[in-house]
Protein backbone atom coordinates (compact mmCIF):
# COMPACT_ATOMS: atom_id res chain seq x y z
CA UNK A 1 0.00 0.00 0.00
CA UNK A 2 2.74 2.41 0.98
CA UNK A 3 4.68 1.42 -2.13
CA UNK A 4 1.64 2.28 -4.21
CA UNK A 5 1.53 5.65 -2.53
CA UNK A 6 5.16 6.24 -3.49
CA UNK A 7 4.42 5.13 -7.04
CA UNK A 8 1.45 7.48 -7.14
CA UNK A 9 3.44 10.39 -5.78
CA UNK A 10 6.18 9.78 -8.33
CA UNK A 11 3.64 9.73 -11.12
CA UNK A 12 1.83 12.68 -9.65
CA UNK A 13 4.95 14.79 -9.22
CA UNK A 14 5.51 14.54 -12.96
CA UNK A 15 1.96 15.70 -13.62
CA UNK A 16 2.58 18.47 -11.14
CA UNK A 17 5.71 19.61 -12.99
CA UNK A 18 3.86 19.70 -16.28
CA UNK A 19 0.85 21.37 -14.69
CA UNK A 20 3.14 24.01 -13.18
CA UNK A 21 4.33 24.83 -16.68
CA UNK A 22 0.76 25.22 -17.89
CA UNK A 23 -0.16 27.29 -14.88
CA UNK A 24 2.83 29.58 -15.19
CA UNK A 25 2.10 30.18 -18.86
CA UNK A 26 -1.62 30.65 -18.35
CA UNK A 27 -1.11 32.78 -15.28
CA UNK A 28 1.14 35.19 -17.13
CA UNK A 29 -0.35 35.27 -20.63
CA UNK A 30 -3.96 34.35 -19.78
CA UNK A 31 -3.72 32.06 -22.75
CA UNK A 32 -3.77 28.29 -23.03
CA UNK A 33 -1.14 26.41 -25.02
CA UNK A 34 -1.75 22.97 -26.45
CA UNK A 35 1.84 22.40 -27.50
CA UNK A 36 3.03 21.81 -23.93
CA UNK A 37 2.74 18.02 -24.14
CA UNK A 38 4.87 18.05 -27.27
CA UNK A 39 7.50 20.27 -25.66
CA UNK A 40 7.63 17.63 -22.93
CA UNK A 41 8.04 14.90 -25.55
CA UNK A 42 10.89 16.74 -27.28
CA UNK A 43 12.57 17.21 -23.89
CA UNK A 44 12.30 13.48 -23.26
CA UNK A 45 13.88 12.65 -26.63
CA UNK A 46 16.71 15.13 -26.11
CA UNK A 47 17.47 13.49 -22.76
CA UNK A 48 17.25 10.09 -24.41
CA UNK A 49 19.77 11.01 -27.08
CA UNK A 50 22.17 12.45 -24.53
CA UNK A 51 22.01 9.30 -22.43
CA UNK A 52 22.30 7.00 -25.42
CA UNK A 53 24.98 8.78 -27.40
CA UNK A 54 26.93 10.97 -25.05
CA UNK A 55 27.04 9.88 -21.46
CA UNK A 56 24.61 8.06 -19.19
CA UNK A 57 24.26 10.81 -16.68
CA UNK A 58 20.84 11.93 -15.54
CA UNK A 59 21.93 15.45 -14.66
CA UNK A 60 23.56 15.95 -18.04
CA UNK A 61 20.41 14.73 -19.76
CA UNK A 62 18.29 17.06 -17.67
CA UNK A 63 20.52 20.01 -18.45
CA UNK A 64 20.37 19.33 -22.17
CA UNK A 65 16.59 18.97 -22.03
CA UNK A 66 16.34 22.23 -20.11
CA UNK A 67 18.29 24.09 -22.75
CA UNK A 68 16.42 22.53 -25.67
CA UNK A 69 12.95 23.07 -24.25
CA UNK A 70 13.71 26.64 -23.23
CA UNK A 71 14.52 27.42 -26.86
CA UNK A 72 11.50 25.48 -28.06
CA UNK A 73 9.27 27.29 -25.59
CA UNK A 74 10.46 30.67 -26.82
CA UNK A 75 9.88 29.53 -30.40
CA UNK A 76 6.30 28.52 -29.54
CA UNK A 77 5.73 31.83 -27.81
CA UNK A 78 7.00 33.76 -30.81
CA UNK A 79 4.99 31.83 -33.35
CA UNK A 80 1.72 31.42 -31.50
CA UNK A 81 1.53 34.45 -29.23
CA UNK A 82 4.07 37.16 -30.01
CA UNK A 83 2.90 37.78 -33.57
CA UNK A 84 -0.73 37.32 -32.59
CA UNK A 85 -0.78 39.55 -29.54
CA UNK A 86 -3.95 41.39 -30.52
CA UNK A 87 -5.67 38.44 -32.12
CA UNK A 88 -8.52 36.56 -30.44
CA UNK A 89 -7.64 33.70 -28.16
CA UNK A 90 -8.88 31.11 -30.66
CA UNK A 91 -6.21 32.09 -33.17
CA UNK A 92 -3.32 31.44 -30.81
CA UNK A 93 -4.97 28.25 -29.62
CA UNK A 94 -5.18 26.94 -33.16
CA UNK A 95 -1.54 27.82 -33.83
CA UNK A 96 -0.44 25.86 -30.74
CA UNK A 97 -2.52 22.92 -31.96
CA UNK A 98 -0.77 23.20 -35.32
CA UNK A 99 2.63 23.29 -33.61
CA UNK A 100 1.78 20.21 -31.60
CA UNK A 101 0.74 18.32 -34.75
CA UNK A 102 4.01 19.32 -36.44
CA UNK A 103 6.17 18.33 -33.47
CA UNK A 104 4.55 14.90 -33.07
CA UNK A 105 4.96 14.13 -36.74
CA UNK A 106 8.50 15.49 -36.85
CA UNK A 107 9.38 13.19 -33.96
CA UNK A 108 7.80 10.30 -35.83
CA UNK A 109 9.99 11.05 -38.83
CA UNK A 110 13.18 11.48 -36.80
CA UNK A 111 12.87 8.72 -34.20
CA UNK A 112 10.27 6.47 -35.80
CA UNK A 113 6.78 5.80 -34.48
CA UNK A 114 7.87 2.84 -32.33
CA UNK A 115 8.72 2.97 -28.64
CA UNK A 116 12.42 3.42 -27.93
CA UNK A 117 14.21 2.48 -24.76
CA UNK A 118 17.56 3.18 -23.15
CA UNK A 119 19.61 -0.07 -23.22
CA UNK A 120 19.66 -1.73 -19.82
CA UNK A 121 23.44 -1.53 -19.52
CA UNK A 122 23.20 2.23 -19.69
CA UNK A 123 20.17 2.32 -17.45
CA UNK A 124 22.09 0.46 -14.75
CA UNK A 125 24.78 3.09 -14.86
CA UNK A 126 22.08 5.71 -14.42
CA UNK A 127 21.23 4.09 -11.12
CA UNK A 128 18.62 1.45 -11.77
CA UNK A 129 18.70 -0.12 -8.32
CA UNK A 130 16.33 -0.20 -5.42
CA UNK A 131 16.72 0.03 -1.69
CA UNK A 132 14.66 -0.60 1.34
CA UNK A 133 13.41 1.99 3.78
CA UNK A 134 11.48 0.59 6.72
CA UNK A 135 10.31 -2.46 4.81
CA UNK A 136 9.32 -0.51 1.71
CA UNK A 137 11.16 -0.93 -1.58
CA UNK A 138 11.95 2.33 -3.33
CA UNK A 139 13.92 2.56 -6.54
CA UNK A 140 16.65 5.08 -7.01
CA UNK A 141 14.81 6.50 -10.00
CA UNK A 142 11.76 7.20 -7.89
CA UNK A 143 13.93 9.10 -5.44
CA UNK A 144 15.50 10.96 -8.36
CA UNK A 145 12.11 11.88 -9.83
CA UNK A 146 10.73 13.01 -6.49
CA UNK A 147 13.95 14.80 -5.56
CA UNK A 148 14.30 16.68 -8.83
CA UNK A 149 10.63 17.63 -8.73
CA UNK A 150 10.75 18.98 -5.22
CA UNK A 151 13.97 20.83 -5.99
CA UNK A 152 12.45 22.44 -9.05
CA UNK A 153 9.32 23.40 -7.19
CA UNK A 154 11.36 25.10 -4.49
CA UNK A 155 13.44 26.79 -7.15
CA UNK A 156 10.33 28.00 -8.94
CA UNK A 157 8.87 29.22 -5.68
CA UNK A 158 12.09 31.12 -5.03
CA UNK A 159 12.17 32.63 -8.50
CA UNK A 160 8.55 33.74 -8.40
CA UNK A 161 8.60 35.15 -4.89
CA UNK A 162 12.16 36.23 -4.27
CA UNK A 163 13.69 37.53 -7.49
CA UNK A 164 13.16 40.55 -9.66
CA UNK A 165 12.14 38.35 -12.58
CA UNK A 166 9.52 36.74 -10.36
CA UNK A 167 8.22 40.10 -9.28
CA UNK A 168 7.93 41.21 -12.89
CA UNK A 169 6.14 37.99 -13.80
CA UNK A 170 3.71 38.46 -10.92
CA UNK A 171 3.11 42.06 -11.89
CA UNK A 172 2.44 41.13 -15.52
CA UNK A 173 0.14 38.32 -14.43
CA UNK A 174 -1.84 40.70 -12.29
CA UNK A 175 -2.27 43.46 -14.84
CA UNK A 176 -0.11 43.47 -17.93
CA UNK A 177 -1.15 46.96 -18.97
CA UNK A 178 -0.19 48.46 -15.65
CA UNK A 179 3.07 46.52 -15.71
CA UNK A 180 3.75 47.81 -19.19
CA UNK A 181 3.05 51.36 -18.06
CA UNK A 182 5.52 50.92 -15.22
CA UNK A 183 8.25 50.10 -17.70
CA UNK A 184 8.13 46.33 -17.71
CA UNK A 185 9.07 44.78 -21.03
CA UNK A 186 5.96 42.63 -21.20
CA UNK A 187 7.08 40.76 -24.31
CA UNK A 188 10.25 39.71 -22.53
CA UNK A 189 8.23 38.57 -19.50
CA UNK A 190 5.93 36.44 -21.64
CA UNK A 191 8.95 34.86 -23.24
CA UNK A 192 10.53 34.18 -19.86
CA UNK A 193 7.33 32.62 -18.54
CA UNK A 194 7.10 30.44 -21.61
CA UNK A 195 10.75 29.42 -21.34
CA UNK A 196 10.48 28.53 -17.64
CA UNK A 197 7.20 26.67 -18.15
CA UNK A 198 8.61 24.72 -21.07
CA UNK A 199 11.77 23.87 -19.13
CA UNK A 200 9.64 22.34 -16.38
CA UNK A 201 7.90 20.33 -19.10
CA UNK A 202 11.21 19.21 -20.58
CA UNK A 203 12.49 18.02 -17.20
CA UNK A 204 9.26 16.10 -16.66
CA UNK A 205 9.78 14.49 -20.06
CA UNK A 206 13.25 13.22 -19.24
CA UNK A 207 12.13 11.98 -15.81
CA UNK A 208 9.13 10.08 -17.18
CA UNK A 209 11.10 8.70 -20.09
CA UNK A 210 13.87 7.34 -17.88
CA UNK A 211 11.50 6.21 -15.12
CA UNK A 212 9.39 4.05 -17.43
CA UNK A 213 12.22 3.72 -19.96
CA UNK A 214 9.83 4.41 -22.80
CA UNK A 215 10.19 7.13 -25.42
CA UNK A 216 7.60 7.45 -28.17
CA UNK A 217 6.38 10.37 -30.31
CA UNK A 218 2.85 10.46 -28.93
CA UNK A 219 3.95 10.33 -25.29
CA UNK A 220 3.14 14.01 -24.94
CA UNK A 221 -0.48 13.79 -25.95
CA UNK A 222 -2.06 12.03 -23.01
CA UNK A 223 0.41 13.44 -20.47
CA UNK A 224 -0.06 16.94 -21.74
CA UNK A 225 -3.81 16.69 -21.49
CA UNK A 226 -3.70 15.11 -18.05
CA UNK A 227 -1.35 17.78 -16.80
CA UNK A 228 -3.64 20.30 -18.34
CA UNK A 229 -6.55 18.82 -16.39
CA UNK A 230 -4.40 18.96 -13.28
CA UNK A 231 -3.77 22.59 -13.97
CA UNK A 232 -7.51 23.25 -14.35
CA UNK A 233 -8.27 21.27 -11.19
CA UNK A 234 -5.70 23.43 -9.43
CA UNK A 235 -7.39 26.57 -10.68
CA UNK A 236 -5.25 27.36 -13.73
CA UNK A 237 -3.58 30.34 -12.11
CA UNK A 238 -2.53 28.86 -8.79
CA UNK A 239 0.93 27.28 -8.63
CA UNK A 240 0.30 25.45 -5.33
CA UNK A 241 -3.04 24.32 -6.73
CA UNK A 242 -1.30 22.77 -9.73
CA UNK A 243 1.08 20.83 -7.48
CA UNK A 244 -1.70 19.53 -5.23
CA UNK A 245 -3.89 18.59 -8.18
CA UNK A 246 -1.04 16.88 -10.01
CA UNK A 247 -0.12 14.78 -6.99
CA UNK A 248 -3.77 13.97 -6.35
CA UNK A 249 -4.34 12.75 -9.89
CA UNK A 250 -1.16 10.67 -9.80
CA UNK A 251 -2.13 8.97 -6.54
CA UNK A 252 -5.73 8.37 -7.61
CA UNK A 253 -4.56 6.83 -10.89
CA UNK A 254 -2.14 4.50 -9.17
CA UNK A 255 -4.70 3.37 -6.64
CA UNK A 256 -7.31 2.85 -9.33
CA UNK A 257 -4.97 0.27 -10.86
CA UNK A 258 -4.68 -1.34 -7.44
CA UNK A 259 -8.46 -1.61 -7.24
CA UNK A 260 -8.83 -3.13 -10.67
CA UNK A 261 -9.88 -0.19 -12.80
CA UNK A 262 -6.63 -0.15 -14.73
CA UNK A 263 -8.38 0.17 -18.09
CA UNK A 264 -10.03 3.36 -17.04
CA UNK A 265 -7.24 4.96 -15.04
CA UNK A 266 -6.56 7.54 -17.74
CA UNK A 267 -10.09 8.86 -17.44
CA UNK A 268 -9.86 10.09 -13.85
CA UNK A 269 -7.99 13.28 -14.61
CA UNK A 270 -10.58 14.35 -17.18
CA UNK A 271 -13.45 13.44 -14.91
CA UNK A 272 -11.81 15.52 -12.18
CA UNK A 273 -11.41 18.39 -14.57
CA UNK A 274 -15.05 18.33 -15.64
CA UNK A 275 -16.28 17.99 -12.06
CA UNK A 276 -14.11 20.90 -10.94
CA UNK A 277 -15.30 23.02 -13.84
CA UNK A 278 -18.88 22.26 -12.92
CA UNK A 279 -18.76 22.71 -9.19
CA UNK A 280 -15.72 24.74 -8.30
CA UNK A 281 -14.42 26.64 -11.34
CA UNK A 282 -11.93 28.51 -9.18
CA UNK A 283 -9.98 25.32 -8.62
CA UNK A 284 -9.26 23.10 -5.65
CA UNK A 285 -7.66 25.80 -3.56
CA UNK A 286 -10.12 28.47 -4.58
CA UNK A 287 -9.27 31.76 -6.19
CA UNK A 288 -10.61 33.47 -9.23
CA UNK A 289 -9.34 30.82 -11.60
CA UNK A 290 -10.31 31.20 -15.16
CA UNK A 291 -12.76 33.96 -14.49
CA UNK A 292 -9.84 36.11 -15.53
CA UNK A 293 -9.34 34.33 -18.83
CA UNK A 294 -8.65 36.83 -21.53
CA UNK A 295 -11.35 36.74 -24.17
CA UNK A 296 -13.13 33.57 -25.13
Amino acid sequence: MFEQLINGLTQGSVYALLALGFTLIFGTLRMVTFAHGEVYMIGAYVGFEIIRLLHPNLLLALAAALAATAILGIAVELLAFHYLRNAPHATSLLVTIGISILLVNAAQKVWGPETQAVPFSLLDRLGNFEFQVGGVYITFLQVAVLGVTVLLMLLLYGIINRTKLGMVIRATAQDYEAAFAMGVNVDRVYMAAFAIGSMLGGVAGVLVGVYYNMFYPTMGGLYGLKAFSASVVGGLTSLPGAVVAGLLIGVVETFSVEFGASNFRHIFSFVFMILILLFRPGGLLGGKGMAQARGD
Partner: protein
Amino acid sequence: MPRTLRSLLANVPYLLLLALLAAVPPFLPNPYHVQVLVFIGIYVILALSLNLLNGYVGLLSIGHAAFYAVGAYASAKLTLELHLPWIAALVGSGAIAGAFGYLVARPTLRLSGIYLTLVTLGFNMILFLVLQNWMGFTNGPLGIMDIPPPSLFGYGIRSRLGYYYLILALAVLTVISMHRLMTCRFGRALTAIRENELAAEATGVHTTRYKVQAFVVAAFYAGIAGSFYAHFMNFISPDSFTINESFILLAMLAFGGQGNLIGPVVGAAVLILVPEVFRPLQEYRMFVYGGILIVMMLVRRQGLLGGRPYSLRLTRFDGTEKKVYARGDKFFPEEK
Protein backbone atom coordinates in the same frame (compact mmCIF):
# COMPACT_ATOMS: atom_id res chain seq x y z
CA MET B 1 -42.68 34.73 -62.66
CA PRO B 2 -43.79 32.22 -60.05
CA ARG B 3 -41.73 32.28 -56.89
CA THR B 4 -40.30 28.79 -57.16
CA LEU B 5 -39.12 29.42 -60.70
CA ARG B 6 -37.55 32.66 -59.64
CA SER B 7 -35.60 31.10 -56.81
CA LEU B 8 -34.56 28.24 -59.11
CA LEU B 9 -33.23 30.72 -61.64
CA ALA B 10 -31.41 32.66 -58.94
CA ASN B 11 -29.66 29.50 -57.84
CA VAL B 12 -28.60 28.36 -61.30
CA PRO B 13 -24.84 28.25 -60.53
CA TYR B 14 -25.43 25.99 -57.55
CA LEU B 15 -27.82 23.77 -59.47
CA LEU B 16 -25.25 23.42 -62.26
CA LEU B 17 -22.60 22.45 -59.72
CA LEU B 18 -24.98 19.90 -58.24
CA ALA B 19 -25.75 18.48 -61.69
CA LEU B 20 -22.02 18.18 -62.33
CA LEU B 21 -21.47 16.39 -59.03
CA ALA B 22 -24.31 14.00 -59.85
CA ALA B 23 -23.35 13.34 -63.46
CA VAL B 24 -19.58 12.88 -63.37
CA PRO B 25 -18.88 10.08 -60.83
CA PRO B 26 -20.34 7.19 -62.91
CA PHE B 27 -17.71 7.95 -65.53
CA LEU B 28 -14.76 8.01 -63.16
CA PRO B 29 -12.33 5.30 -64.26
CA ASN B 30 -11.34 4.12 -60.82
CA PRO B 31 -13.79 3.14 -58.05
CA TYR B 32 -11.25 4.51 -55.60
CA HIS B 33 -11.95 7.99 -56.91
CA VAL B 34 -15.58 7.56 -55.95
CA GLN B 35 -14.49 6.51 -52.49
CA VAL B 36 -12.47 9.71 -52.15
CA LEU B 37 -15.54 11.68 -53.17
CA VAL B 38 -17.56 9.85 -50.51
CA PHE B 39 -15.01 10.86 -47.89
CA ILE B 40 -15.18 14.44 -49.07
CA GLY B 41 -18.93 14.24 -48.52
CA ILE B 42 -18.50 12.97 -44.96
CA TYR B 43 -16.01 15.68 -44.12
CA VAL B 44 -18.16 18.35 -45.73
CA ILE B 45 -20.94 17.48 -43.28
CA LEU B 46 -18.48 17.37 -40.36
CA ALA B 47 -16.83 20.65 -41.29
CA LEU B 48 -20.20 22.35 -41.70
CA SER B 49 -21.26 21.00 -38.35
CA LEU B 50 -18.13 22.37 -36.67
CA ASN B 51 -18.55 25.61 -38.59
CA LEU B 52 -21.89 26.11 -36.91
CA LEU B 53 -20.02 26.43 -33.60
CA ASN B 54 -16.62 27.85 -34.53
CA GLY B 55 -17.83 30.07 -37.33
CA TYR B 56 -21.35 31.14 -36.51
CA VAL B 57 -21.48 31.26 -32.73
CA GLY B 58 -17.82 31.72 -31.94
CA LEU B 59 -17.62 28.77 -29.57
CA LEU B 60 -14.38 26.92 -30.13
CA SER B 61 -14.95 23.17 -30.07
CA ILE B 62 -11.70 21.27 -30.46
CA GLY B 63 -13.01 17.77 -29.83
CA HIS B 64 -15.66 17.52 -32.48
CA ALA B 65 -14.66 14.02 -33.56
CA ALA B 66 -16.28 12.83 -30.33
CA PHE B 67 -19.77 13.44 -31.69
CA TYR B 68 -18.77 11.84 -34.98
CA ALA B 69 -17.77 8.78 -32.93
CA VAL B 70 -20.98 8.82 -30.91
CA GLY B 71 -22.97 8.85 -34.14
CA ALA B 72 -21.00 5.98 -35.63
CA TYR B 73 -21.20 3.74 -32.56
CA ALA B 74 -24.85 4.62 -31.93
CA SER B 75 -25.78 3.71 -35.48
CA ALA B 76 -23.86 0.44 -35.32
CA LYS B 77 -25.50 -0.50 -32.04
CA LEU B 78 -28.99 0.54 -33.16
CA THR B 79 -28.87 -1.56 -36.31
CA LEU B 80 -26.95 -4.55 -34.97
CA GLU B 81 -28.58 -4.98 -31.58
CA LEU B 82 -31.96 -3.28 -31.81
CA HIS B 83 -32.35 -4.22 -35.49
CA LEU B 84 -33.70 -0.83 -36.35
CA PRO B 85 -34.02 0.02 -40.04
CA TRP B 86 -31.21 2.16 -41.44
CA ILE B 87 -33.18 5.38 -41.69
CA ALA B 88 -34.27 5.15 -38.05
CA ALA B 89 -30.69 4.47 -37.00
CA LEU B 90 -29.51 7.48 -39.00
CA VAL B 91 -31.89 9.85 -37.27
CA GLY B 92 -31.48 8.07 -33.95
CA SER B 93 -27.70 8.33 -33.97
CA GLY B 94 -27.98 12.01 -34.79
CA ALA B 95 -30.33 12.43 -31.85
CA ILE B 96 -28.04 10.49 -29.52
CA ALA B 97 -25.06 12.61 -30.59
CA GLY B 98 -27.22 15.68 -29.98
CA ALA B 99 -28.04 14.43 -26.51
CA PHE B 100 -24.34 14.05 -25.77
CA GLY B 101 -23.87 17.56 -27.10
CA TYR B 102 -26.44 18.77 -24.60
CA LEU B 103 -24.68 16.97 -21.76
CA VAL B 104 -21.38 18.61 -22.68
CA ALA B 105 -22.71 22.07 -23.38
CA ARG B 106 -25.40 22.59 -20.76
CA PRO B 107 -23.18 22.61 -17.67
CA THR B 108 -20.13 24.29 -19.22
CA LEU B 109 -21.81 27.11 -21.10
CA ARG B 110 -22.86 28.81 -17.92
CA LEU B 111 -19.18 29.72 -17.71
CA SER B 112 -17.02 31.56 -20.22
CA GLY B 113 -16.38 30.04 -23.64
CA ILE B 114 -12.88 28.76 -22.91
CA TYR B 115 -14.35 26.22 -20.47
CA LEU B 116 -16.35 24.68 -23.26
CA THR B 117 -13.23 24.44 -25.39
CA LEU B 118 -11.42 22.58 -22.64
CA VAL B 119 -14.32 20.27 -21.95
CA THR B 120 -14.78 19.37 -25.63
CA LEU B 121 -11.15 18.31 -25.70
CA GLY B 122 -11.56 16.33 -22.48
CA PHE B 123 -14.75 14.73 -23.78
CA ASN B 124 -12.95 13.66 -26.95
CA MET B 125 -10.19 12.05 -24.89
CA ILE B 126 -12.57 10.36 -22.47
CA LEU B 127 -14.76 9.01 -25.24
CA PHE B 128 -11.77 7.61 -27.10
CA LEU B 129 -10.51 5.90 -23.95
CA VAL B 130 -13.96 4.50 -23.19
CA LEU B 131 -14.36 3.15 -26.72
CA GLN B 132 -10.88 1.70 -26.46
CA ASN B 133 -11.39 0.02 -23.09
CA TRP B 134 -15.06 -0.89 -22.67
CA MET B 135 -14.70 -4.32 -24.26
CA GLY B 136 -18.21 -5.44 -23.38
CA PHE B 137 -19.97 -2.66 -25.21
CA THR B 138 -17.67 -1.35 -27.92
CA ASN B 139 -15.44 -4.40 -28.42
CA GLY B 140 -12.44 -2.20 -27.65
CA PRO B 141 -9.72 -1.65 -30.24
CA LEU B 142 -11.05 -4.58 -32.30
CA GLY B 143 -14.01 -2.46 -33.27
CA ILE B 144 -17.47 -3.42 -34.44
CA MET B 145 -17.75 -5.42 -37.64
CA ASP B 146 -20.50 -6.34 -40.12
CA ILE B 147 -22.53 -3.19 -39.84
CA PRO B 148 -25.28 -3.65 -42.43
CA PRO B 149 -25.34 -1.37 -45.48
CA PRO B 150 -28.10 1.22 -45.63
CA SER B 151 -31.39 0.20 -47.19
CA LEU B 152 -34.57 2.13 -47.73
CA PHE B 153 -37.93 0.65 -48.82
CA GLY B 154 -36.24 -2.62 -49.60
CA TYR B 155 -33.54 -1.12 -51.79
CA GLY B 156 -30.16 -1.82 -50.32
CA ILE B 157 -27.02 0.05 -51.26
CA ARG B 158 -24.37 -2.25 -52.63
CA SER B 159 -22.06 -0.19 -54.83
CA ARG B 160 -19.74 2.66 -54.03
CA LEU B 161 -21.68 4.76 -56.46
CA GLY B 162 -24.81 4.16 -54.41
CA TYR B 163 -22.99 5.39 -51.31
CA TYR B 164 -21.80 8.39 -53.26
CA TYR B 165 -25.31 9.44 -54.18
CA LEU B 166 -26.46 8.87 -50.63
CA ILE B 167 -23.75 11.07 -49.14
CA LEU B 168 -24.32 13.65 -51.87
CA ALA B 169 -27.96 13.78 -50.87
CA LEU B 170 -27.06 14.02 -47.18
CA ALA B 171 -24.51 16.76 -47.82
CA VAL B 172 -26.94 18.76 -49.93
CA LEU B 173 -29.58 18.31 -47.24
CA THR B 174 -27.06 19.54 -44.68
CA VAL B 175 -26.22 22.63 -46.71
CA ILE B 176 -29.85 23.49 -47.37
CA SER B 177 -31.01 22.85 -43.81
CA MET B 178 -28.11 24.87 -42.40
CA HIS B 179 -28.89 27.69 -44.75
CA ARG B 180 -32.49 27.65 -43.58
CA LEU B 181 -31.37 27.48 -39.96
CA MET B 182 -28.97 30.36 -40.33
CA THR B 183 -31.46 32.66 -41.98
CA CYS B 184 -34.22 32.13 -39.44
CA ARG B 185 -34.47 33.65 -36.01
CA PHE B 186 -32.19 31.00 -34.56
CA GLY B 187 -29.35 31.76 -36.97
CA ARG B 188 -29.64 35.49 -36.54
CA ALA B 189 -29.50 35.07 -32.80
CA LEU B 190 -26.30 33.04 -33.18
CA THR B 191 -24.71 35.66 -35.41
CA ALA B 192 -25.73 38.33 -32.95
CA ILE B 193 -24.06 36.40 -30.13
CA ARG B 194 -20.86 36.10 -32.14
CA GLU B 195 -20.80 39.74 -33.07
CA ASN B 196 -21.45 41.13 -29.64
CA GLU B 197 -22.65 38.88 -26.89
CA LEU B 198 -23.47 41.70 -24.51
CA ALA B 199 -25.52 43.59 -27.07
CA ALA B 200 -27.30 40.41 -28.08
CA GLU B 201 -28.22 39.70 -24.49
CA ALA B 202 -29.36 43.29 -24.03
CA THR B 203 -31.71 43.01 -26.99
CA GLY B 204 -33.33 39.95 -25.50
CA VAL B 205 -31.41 37.04 -26.98
CA HIS B 206 -31.12 34.30 -24.39
CA THR B 207 -27.45 33.71 -25.17
CA THR B 208 -26.82 30.62 -23.08
CA ARG B 209 -29.91 28.85 -24.36
CA TYR B 210 -29.06 29.61 -27.97
CA LYS B 211 -25.48 28.48 -27.51
CA VAL B 212 -26.62 25.17 -26.03
CA GLN B 213 -29.09 24.73 -28.88
CA ALA B 214 -26.36 25.45 -31.42
CA PHE B 215 -24.15 22.88 -29.77
CA VAL B 216 -26.88 20.26 -29.86
CA VAL B 217 -27.62 20.95 -33.52
CA ALA B 218 -23.94 20.77 -34.42
CA ALA B 219 -23.57 17.48 -32.55
CA PHE B 220 -26.64 16.18 -34.40
CA TYR B 221 -25.04 16.81 -37.80
CA ALA B 222 -21.77 15.23 -36.68
CA GLY B 223 -23.77 12.21 -35.50
CA ILE B 224 -25.39 11.90 -38.93
CA ALA B 225 -21.94 11.92 -40.54
CA GLY B 226 -20.79 9.27 -38.06
CA SER B 227 -23.78 7.08 -38.84
CA PHE B 228 -23.09 7.28 -42.56
CA TYR B 229 -19.43 6.46 -41.95
CA ALA B 230 -20.34 3.35 -39.94
CA HIS B 231 -22.64 2.00 -42.65
CA PHE B 232 -20.23 2.94 -45.40
CA MET B 233 -17.17 1.24 -43.91
CA ASN B 234 -19.20 -1.61 -42.36
CA PHE B 235 -16.57 -1.52 -39.65
CA ILE B 236 -15.69 1.02 -36.98
CA SER B 237 -12.93 1.13 -34.41
CA PRO B 238 -11.79 3.83 -31.99
CA ASP B 239 -8.80 4.63 -34.20
CA SER B 240 -11.02 6.51 -36.63
CA PHE B 241 -12.09 8.96 -33.96
CA THR B 242 -8.91 10.19 -32.36
CA ILE B 243 -8.18 13.76 -31.42
CA ASN B 244 -6.31 14.02 -34.74
CA GLU B 245 -9.63 13.78 -36.50
CA SER B 246 -10.85 16.82 -34.59
CA PHE B 247 -7.69 18.68 -35.50
CA ILE B 248 -8.14 17.86 -39.19
CA LEU B 249 -11.60 19.41 -39.00
CA LEU B 250 -10.11 22.53 -37.43
CA ALA B 251 -7.54 22.70 -40.24
CA MET B 252 -10.34 22.45 -42.80
CA LEU B 253 -12.12 25.41 -41.27
CA ALA B 254 -8.88 27.35 -40.91
CA PHE B 255 -8.13 26.76 -44.56
CA GLY B 256 -11.53 27.21 -46.14
CA GLY B 257 -12.75 29.89 -43.82
CA GLN B 258 -15.70 29.88 -41.49
CA GLY B 259 -18.82 31.80 -40.75
CA ASN B 260 -20.37 30.98 -44.10
CA LEU B 261 -21.45 27.78 -45.83
CA ILE B 262 -18.94 27.84 -48.69
CA GLY B 263 -15.67 28.01 -46.75
CA PRO B 264 -16.01 24.72 -44.84
CA VAL B 265 -17.10 22.88 -47.99
CA VAL B 266 -14.08 24.16 -49.91
CA GLY B 267 -11.79 23.47 -46.96
CA ALA B 268 -13.01 19.89 -46.59
CA ALA B 269 -12.78 19.18 -50.30
CA VAL B 270 -9.29 20.64 -50.72
CA LEU B 271 -7.81 19.08 -47.60
CA ILE B 272 -9.09 15.61 -48.51
CA LEU B 273 -8.06 15.98 -52.15
CA VAL B 274 -4.56 17.37 -51.68
CA PRO B 275 -3.04 14.25 -50.07
CA GLU B 276 -4.86 12.07 -52.62
CA VAL B 277 -3.71 14.02 -55.64
CA PHE B 278 -0.12 14.40 -54.46
CA ARG B 279 0.51 10.82 -53.46
CA PRO B 280 3.96 11.41 -51.95
CA LEU B 281 2.29 13.87 -49.60
CA GLN B 282 0.20 11.09 -48.06
CA GLU B 283 2.99 10.30 -45.63
CA TYR B 284 3.23 13.94 -44.66
CA ARG B 285 -0.52 14.46 -44.41
CA MET B 286 -0.47 15.59 -40.81
CA PHE B 287 2.41 17.97 -41.54
CA VAL B 288 0.23 19.57 -44.16
CA TYR B 289 -2.68 19.93 -41.75
CA GLY B 290 -0.52 21.31 -38.95
CA GLY B 291 1.27 23.65 -41.31
CA ILE B 292 -2.03 24.90 -42.73
CA LEU B 293 -3.31 25.67 -39.23
CA ILE B 294 -0.22 27.73 -38.39
CA VAL B 295 0.22 29.50 -41.71
CA MET B 296 -3.45 30.36 -42.14
CA MET B 297 -3.70 31.74 -38.62
CA LEU B 298 -0.61 33.88 -39.09
CA VAL B 299 -1.29 35.04 -42.63
CA ARG B 300 -5.01 34.94 -43.28
CA ARG B 301 -6.87 34.39 -40.05
CA GLN B 302 -10.33 34.33 -41.56
CA GLY B 303 -9.47 31.50 -43.96
CA LEU B 304 -9.52 31.47 -47.72
CA LEU B 305 -13.19 32.33 -48.13
CA GLY B 306 -13.99 33.52 -44.63
CA GLY B 307 -14.68 36.96 -43.31
CA ARG B 308 -17.37 37.83 -45.78
CA PRO B 309 -20.86 36.54 -46.29
CA TYR B 310 -21.59 34.20 -49.17
CA SER B 311 -25.30 33.81 -49.26
CA LEU B 312 -26.40 30.51 -50.70
CA ARG B 313 -28.91 32.35 -52.80
CA LEU B 314 -26.90 34.79 -54.85
CA THR B 315 -29.61 37.33 -55.48
CA ARG B 316 -33.33 37.27 -55.71
CA PHE B 317 -34.41 38.19 -59.17
CA ASP B 318 -35.85 41.48 -58.05
CA GLY B 319 -32.54 42.26 -56.38
CA THR B 320 -33.93 42.45 -52.86
CA GLU B 321 -31.61 39.97 -51.24
CA LYS B 322 -30.96 40.94 -47.68
CA LYS B 323 -27.55 40.02 -46.41
CA VAL B 324 -28.27 38.20 -43.21
CA TYR B 325 -24.70 37.25 -42.48
CA ALA B 326 -22.63 39.85 -40.79
CA ARG B 327 -18.89 39.85 -41.10
CA GLY B 328 -16.99 37.70 -38.66
CA ASP B 329 -15.36 40.63 -36.98
CA LYS B 330 -15.38 39.59 -33.38
CA PHE B 331 -14.16 36.06 -33.80
CA PHE B 332 -11.71 36.57 -36.59
CA PRO B 333 -11.34 40.31 -36.97
CA GLU B 334 -9.72 41.58 -40.10
CA GLU B 335 -6.52 43.49 -39.95
CA LYS B 336 -7.04 47.18 -39.67
